């Protein structure tokens, strides 16, 4: 059996209603859990980019990418290993405001983790942190003993180290 690894799948698509349903269905059909999913605009006008993280074999990832590319609105799909991409996630921590003054250590945690305070109100303040999953997790562990009122982490966003030929593909296309 081929070993499971983490793969980042990038999907460039037309921005159409319903495509998310089609793409998630492909994972559902093969009983593969999506670890994280992010959809945003891409570097190309009117083209969306899905960034999907899965933990499975390369063989399955390749087949899934083939099935995704088959979808009419999908322009191109790629997959990469962690080593082939620059990737990160964002997180927000909501913490009771009194702790900021009572627990001096919290300010050090914020500084040491290169995170920042986004807002402060009389009841709570919010810290944002971007980085690798482990870094966010580590900061979570550090803050946990003080009490975290709310925590949320985004899906992975990533760019590949190598060039993706997507712009050339679009240029070649003669739209009639």
């Amino acid at each position: 059996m081929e070993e499971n690894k983490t793969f980042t799948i990038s999907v460039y698509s037309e921005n159409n209603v319903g495509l998310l349903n089609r793409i998630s269905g492909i994972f559902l059909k093969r009983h593969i859990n999506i670890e994280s999913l992010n959809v945003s605009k891409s570097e190309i006008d009117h083209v969306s980019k899905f960034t999907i993280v899965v933990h499975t074999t390369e063989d399955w990832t390749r087949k899934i990418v083939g099935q995704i590319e088959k979808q009419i609105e999908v322009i191109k799909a790629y997959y990469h290993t962690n080593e082939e991409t620059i990737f990160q996630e964002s997180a927000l921590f909501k913490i009771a405001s009194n702790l900021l003054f009572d627990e001096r250590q919290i300010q050090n945690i914020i500084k040491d983790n290169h995170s920042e305070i986004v807002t402060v109100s009389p009841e709570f303040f919010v810290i944002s942190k971007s980085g690798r999953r482990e870094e966010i997790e580590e900061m979570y562990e550090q803050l946990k003993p003080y009490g975290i009122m709310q925590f949320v982490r985004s899906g992975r966003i990533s760019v590949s180290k190598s060039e993706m030929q997507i712009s050339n593909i679009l240029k070649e296309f003669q739209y009639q």
Partner: protein
Amino acid sequence: MEVKTLKKEESKTGTKIRISGAEAVIHCLLAEGIETVYGYPGGAIMPIYDELYKFRDRLHHVLTRHEQGATHAAQGYARVSGKVGVAMATSGPGATNLVTGIADAQIDSTPMVCITGQVARHLLGSDAFQETDIVGISTPVTKWNYQITNASEIPEVMAKAFYIARSGRPGPVLIDITKNAQFEEFDFEYQKCTAIRSYTAKPTINQDKIEEAAELINKAKKPMIVWGQGIILGKAEAALKAFVEKAGIPAAWTILGASALPSTHPLNVGMVGMHGNYGPNMLTNECDVLIALGMRFDDRVTGDLSTYAKQAKVLHFEIDPAEINKNVHADVPVLGDVKESLEAILPLITENNHDAWHNKFKEHYKIEFDKVIKNDLHPEKEGLTMGEVIERINKESNHEAVIVSDVGQHQMIACRYAKFNTSKSNITSGGLGTMGFALPAAIGAKMGAPKREVVAVIGDGGYQMTIQELGTIFQTKVPVKIVVLNNDFLGMVRQWQQLFFDRRYASTEMTNPDFIKIAEGYHIQAKKVTKREDLEGAVKEMMASPNAYFLEVQVEKEDNVFPMIPTGASVSDIRLS
């Protein structure tokens, strides 16, 4: 109110005219060359039906008795004609009744456009009367689908729908149109779709792969071809024949590839797969080069993948990149339209024959003949066999009939023994194995090829799943021939119970109604045969009839279909008894 219809010239592409969304749908269909649509009306699609009424002299609507029947009829029409089949239904239950046929078309790559009515846009998502999220439901079983909520979207979406359904690897498309969009008026103009930015209908051919494939083929000592429906969908029958003959390679077919090369062609060595022929299955595990043409290595074809053709170099000619290495590793993937690929490779192929190797297929055939075929076609026991009925149909139709089969033992027997001279003659539900397919599909097939004789071969179980379509036959007077092979059992399941569940026949015995009376109730001429001496006369009478005809043949209750590869076993573990 004045009824407004377009004159022929006006409906040509490029002319603007103010019409309703419902009328626009009809103009789109006409612009796509559609002459026949199958469907069933209801509240949410009434504006379109109203237009169908106005255009009834130019667009023929066939009222099936169930929406599933409409999809299968559209499939049968598409499969014999090579055109896009069209089915329509109302929202909610009408739309959900289409799903089985859509799923069947998806897995068998049948070009089909389904149009469903939907509640008005302001009601969407409110659990309105007969509201169903058909776009969501049909997503996994369509090549593409789309919900139209504004009339102005109709021309572009319809044009895309037909282009997507028929191009590349064909498939079903569903367009859901809200009721307000059917009523709204807008400036209609139609432009056929010829390209979509994000969709590559067929990959371009890579000449290096063609050369690599040619070299392996030319060097092969024991090459074998397995072709699938891709040959028929890609209109590559002539290219296949030229290739087979020049290279002198024994060629076998999958169930959906049947009829692409005449049955009597000397290099046609039969069917592969679970109930396929002995030779091509056994020799799959002996050939040195396996040339797969427009087929997708279905598990019913390969059996256990870990033992399938392991010794062979596999060349896979395929239009859909997602099929490459999906089930079987391709040593040389030849991506592209199979007709273009075959035409490109032909000049590079050296003329050859592989007589000694071909003889091995003949030896295997002889074994299969003695152990299986002889008893199926020329039985000595008293009861009638399904095989002899098919053989009789072959004789009386001169191998020229379109055979539409349902699902079960009779299907395997029909596909094994039906003889074909002409392509697009074997219409069956392959990938989904949908019981109830054949009767409505035969209606569509006859309408898609009116000059051809269409014979539906159906089991007593599957017949009762869409038996109501006899009403469609009666009303439209479509002259299809219906043969029910009655064993009073869900035969194929019973066979498995016998072989793998110690003969525990759980819920497979059927107490059947008087099929003759039912057919006659629909005013269809009917006859029942229980004895061998009556078979020939009855089949002759059926074939000679200019009208629809129902023939019931009482066959042996507990016959089995062999050869058989048990599920999960290797193709060379094929059993002859």
